[in-house]
């Protein structure tokens, strides 16, 4: 692996390790906690993405960040796209302002998806199209690492210690707590 890639992996691993993921994972509460930590609202908008647009979009205004993700794909893919856009926020990517030439496609898609949002208010647009840009690579790698951590916590998160329940589910939770597997090493 070349030095630039090594550095990218190191940075993304370090960021992923620093993220507190709810257990069991719930995208809504994860985003709410993240927004509370950043002191800025994050609005999640599930949209039917137009045919030529990016499959996920992060738009930022003075007031809030908007994450637009597609309805027309699988739950795993939706969650990944959401984590990709969160990755941009965690990495502190600035993208470009709404009027810059290089992001004309993303800006146009943003306008299509949020026609009521004035272009003058948009400070940042980052669309998930391909990974040629460094910022997109970083967000995509971070999203993949976070998804791996979510998958691991969901394995352990299904049964928690519960001394209260005397039914079968309570018993199984206690058995899992005592005899169940420990967490595996993360990538």
């Amino acid at each position, binding site marked *: *692996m*070349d030095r630039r*890639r090594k550095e990218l*992996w190191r940075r993304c691993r370090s960021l992923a390790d620093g993220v507190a993921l709810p257990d069991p994972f719930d995208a809504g509460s994860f985003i709410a906690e993240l927004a509370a930590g950043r002191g800025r609202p994050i609005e999640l908008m599930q949209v*039917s*993405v137009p*045919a*030529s647009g990016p*499959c996920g979009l992060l738009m930022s205004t003075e007031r809030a960040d908007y994450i637009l993700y*597609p309805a*027309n*794909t*699988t*739950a*795993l*893919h*939706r*969650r*990944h796209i959401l984590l990709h856009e969160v990755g941009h926020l965690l990495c502190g990517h600035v993208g470009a302002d709404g009027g810059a030439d290089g992001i004309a496609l993303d800006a146009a898609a943003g306008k299509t998806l949020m026609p009521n949002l004035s272009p003058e208010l948009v400070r940042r647009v980052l669309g998930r*199209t*391909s*990974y*040629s840009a460094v910022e997109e*690579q970083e967000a*995509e*790698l971070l999203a*993949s*690492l976070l*998804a*791996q951590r979510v*998958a691991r916590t969901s394995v352990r998160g*299904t049964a928690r*210690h*519960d*001394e*209260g*329940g*005397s039914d*079968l589910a*309570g*018993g*199984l939770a*206690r*058995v*899992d*707590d*005592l*005899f*169940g*597997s*420990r967490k*595996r090493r993360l*990538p």
Partner: protein
Amino acid sequence: MTETIAYFCCVVAFAGFGYKLIQARHTQPRRRMWLLSGFGMCIAGGIMLLTPAMENAVGVEEPIGSLLNLAADLLKIGAMAFAVAFAHSLKLGEGKRIGWHALLSWTVVAAEIALFFLSGSYRVGEHTAAGPGGLGWFVAYNVLFLVYGLISLLTFSIVFARFARHADPGPLRVGLWLLVGGGVSALGWTFWDVDDIYILATTGAVDAGEDTLSAILAALSVGLAGAGATLSVWGPAMATPFRLIGLYRTYRRIEPLWAALREAVPGIALDPGPGMPGGVEFALYRRVIEIRDGHLALRPYFDPDLPPVAEAEARKARIPEARVAATVEAATLAAALVASEAGRRYAPDDVPATYLDEPDIATEAAWLVEVTRAWRRSPVVVRVRNSRDLSRNSRD
């Protein structure tokens, strides 16, 4: 030799129990840990007291010889009592009353001590014999031990079998079945005493130590229980190579579909570097996501009229019902690739696809394996793909 191996197994199992106790000391209620410790200490003591080494060390002259037998039996009763109490503690939760078995155990302990002294039993070399007029009491002593053992071990095995039946597949379930195996072996170990009772009733004396089969059953019960209780520690390490091989197989099985999409939409690929820098699990996840990215990127080229036609074709080709959906998805993808190369856009309202509701990589990968299988082998999909090759050749 057999005895040495059996005792070695016991030592290994007790080391495992010790580790489990240390590992769980901060997460489990104190009372449950005491129950587990009590079981370990009692069963270890019960086995140890009847070893030839112990008999050589303390001697078998009266009254030590017969008291050694009584102590070993009481420790085994204690082990069974702790095992059942531990099982009930898991089943009912901490703080719930688990009284009936505790009361039964104390009653049995008191009765066994009384019956033992009433029998006036004593050691004669390798055997224990009933005292004058005490044969009936001594038989009752052994019968009570047998009945209590069967009740306790059956209770323990039933509780854990119920857990094992309802646990999700994986190391936990295997571990629970191993614990049940330990309980069943212990049942066999206890039931083996039936012949001792018969010999005692007919001859008035019985072998004082454990015979070879008893020693093997004892080691098996402790070994299986120890293995089951500690499976979470060593199981994943043992299972990891198989799990990784399974993931790699899935990774390779979806490769044809991924390669076709990557060729058509190069932008879907995130190049993580040579090899698999994040491991095979990470590589599989990436491949699944990239297939889904390609699917979304091709959405302008999906023919909205194709899915019902492909479904009818699949049924006409007698493709098994379970594979029809995957065949339709593979056929529509293949047609989208053809349309993409020809620059024929449909811009449908939605992409025809199976949208799995569970955000689970295993489920999604399993589905894509089915789609890839149809992609490679289904005559319906192969026809669509061949039309692409034909149009490519005609252009060349």
